[in-house]
């Protein structure tokens, strides 16, 4: 039976999967801290979820690239919400990249948000959970991290790095009762995928959030969303490199 969380932080909560995960956690009765860059979006979400009787949602405007802020902000949040059962790192960017484009600014931004921001936040969580001998760390990665693919070299790199980091974290703090969950969604109907044309096996964001929460609360380690991607990528991972070079997906 999944164990529900009483307190959680969602980083990257102003839209997309992060927002939907936060909404569903509040419905479960969880007290949720929303962290994201856009204060007005956070306030909009908080206003729609908080009631006059009960404050379930706390907002913290923050740019995940501002790594030095994280230790103080992390403890401010745990102080305000009275504990921490889980952290969900859902911040991520995937700028449009042309086939022959090598734009270092875009690449750096992806590494900063998708990898370094995650490390800054989840290092704090790992230390805390390791000390308190419990807790759940959820990193929203992507199936893109499974292979280095033609259209998005650095996005794939960032998600592969995140996968490896989460695996290492699991090996480091899992022995203290801390759960580390690597979530690999395929295409999800969020602002990130708008304008990308027709995507295979696109699923609505509420379904993705529900599957992520259920799997994380059930103690899964590696989660494909939806599950069919596990089998698809089992095949893709085993395509020989000389064949993969000829493909353009």
């Amino acid at each position, binding site marked *: 039976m999944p164990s529900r969380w009483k307190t959680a932080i969602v980083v990257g909560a102003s839209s997309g999967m992060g927002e939907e995960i936060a909404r569903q956690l509040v419905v479960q009765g969880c007290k949720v801290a929303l962290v994201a860059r856009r204060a007005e979006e956070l306030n909009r979400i908080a206003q729609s979820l908080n009631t006059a009787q009960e404050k379930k949602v706390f907002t913290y405007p923050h740019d995940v690239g501002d790594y030095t802020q994280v230790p103080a902000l992390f403890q401010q949040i*745990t102080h305000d919400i009275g504990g921490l059962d889980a952290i969900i790192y859902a911040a991520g960017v995937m700028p449009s990249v042309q086939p022959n484009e090598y734009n270092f600014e875009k690449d750096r931004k992806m590494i900063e948000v998708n990898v370094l921001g995650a490390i800054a936040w989840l290092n704090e969580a790992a230390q805390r959970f390791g000390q308190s001998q419990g807790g759940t760390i959820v990193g929203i990665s992507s199936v893109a991290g499974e292979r280095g693919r033609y259209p998005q070299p650095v996005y794939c790199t960032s998600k592969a790095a995140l996968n490896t980091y989460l695996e290492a974290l699991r090996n480091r703090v899992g022995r203290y009762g801390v759960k580390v969950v690597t979530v690999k969604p395929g295409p999800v109907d969020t602002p990130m995928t708008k304008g990308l044309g027709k995507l295979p096996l696109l699923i609505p964001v509420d379904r993705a959030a529900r599957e992520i929460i259920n799997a994380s609360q059930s103690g899964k380690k590696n989660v494909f969303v939806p599950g069919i991607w596990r089998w698809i990528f089992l095949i893709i991972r085993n395509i020989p490199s000389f064949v993969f070079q000829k493909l353009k997906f």
Partner: protein
Amino acid sequence: MAVRPLTPPTSEQETTSPKILPLSWDRLERVGAWGMNTSVCAFVYRPTTIEGIREVFEIARTHGRRVALRGSGCSYGDASLLAENISLDLTRMNRILAWNPETGVIKAEPGVTIRNLWQYVIEDGWWSPVVSGTMVVSLGGALGMNIHGKNNFRVGPIGNHVLEFELLTPKGDILRCSRTENAELFHTAIGGFGMLGCFVSITLQLKKVYSGHLSVYAFATPDLSTLFREFEARMETADYLVAWVDCFAKGKALGRSLAHQADYLPKGVDPIPAQTLRVSKQELPETLFGVIPKSLMWRFIKPFSNNWGMRLINWAKYTQGSTLGNHKTVRQAHAAFAFLLDYVPNWKFVYKPGGLIQYQSFVPEATAEACFTAQIEACQKAGIVPFLGVFKRHRKDDFLMSHAVDGYSFALDIPLTAKNRARVWELAKELNRLVIAAGGRFYFAKDSTLDSQTAHAYLGEAAIAQFRRWKQTCDPENLLQTDLSRRLFGDNF
């Protein structure tokens, strides 16, 4: 150092969240309630000196944190917890500062436990006049909660035996308090659940004993009414009275019990006091029947940790006590009689994983029988029958936040599970209504379920206002808080 003059309460204190600065993760620990019913994460500091305590207060100020005082962590609920703040653990301040075996006056630091205390003094012929059911309790915690024993009706709470103490307030003052010096603060800080400052030295008058043994008389009562009558008849002469109540019994047998009266042996009765007063003669046996390690016993009891199992145990215990063991007198060591909770090590693990609450209420003599009868019936009706009920006689005391009454207490061990938790809290509300209607009171050391309204109802607004004035005098920054204080009196006590 003198206490500052009292000042009237100021306007509402600042309610915004303080600016938090990070503390080292190395300090973070999971800190639990003794009843295993709740736990929090807190940054734990264990100073060994008064200067060390002052440093912790300063760290709290500069890092935007509050401080919860904690001794051995024996409160059943959240009385020593404060999530995400500082837990000031005083267990390392555990030195005996002075001992006079002629007068029986001892001065000790707050982390000294009841075990440390009795083992230090017993061979000189002294015993702590008040002890709790476990010897793990620290003296600081004992004063903060103003603990009582099975002899409360005769000697009052531990506060009655304190000659003086020194209180380090968050402001940094050390205030010496006794019945003649800072007397009002003396009667407020004792039982003040750690809200006014930290006891840094405690001077106690101990009880002279002439034997390491007590005379213990066991008797069974077939119902609650008989138990009340027996206690009323015996309290004039008994030194200790306590009863275990079978909360499963219904109808005419409702409230049937096994009770014990214990009395000190007068001088000259024990022919070998030097031997019976040895610490080694007081130690609780480590094995059952000389074979089974008692540390494993909870594992044998665990399969019975359900309604049917506990009904069986209660029935067997009463049947044995009302037949074979009835009206028997035995000599028993002080430690063996006093520390029933230590008799089976880790017995509370029987209640894993959900833990337990102990619901204890204190009700005046005139209304107690009706109230406790209604409590048992309410529990049975709700299908949440306490696995254990403990019944004691009490008397009034003169401490501001006292839990005591001239009457009786009834402590109910109620198991918690993920499924019954909400129902237990609903049941507790119903029991609270019975207690308030009967003019009863509650005990912070045991509490997990009270709400602010009920706390105000039994303490009275005048007492709370007086306590708040002392809070503002000793701790104007409101640095000392606990989850219990927040639950009952808000963040801005």
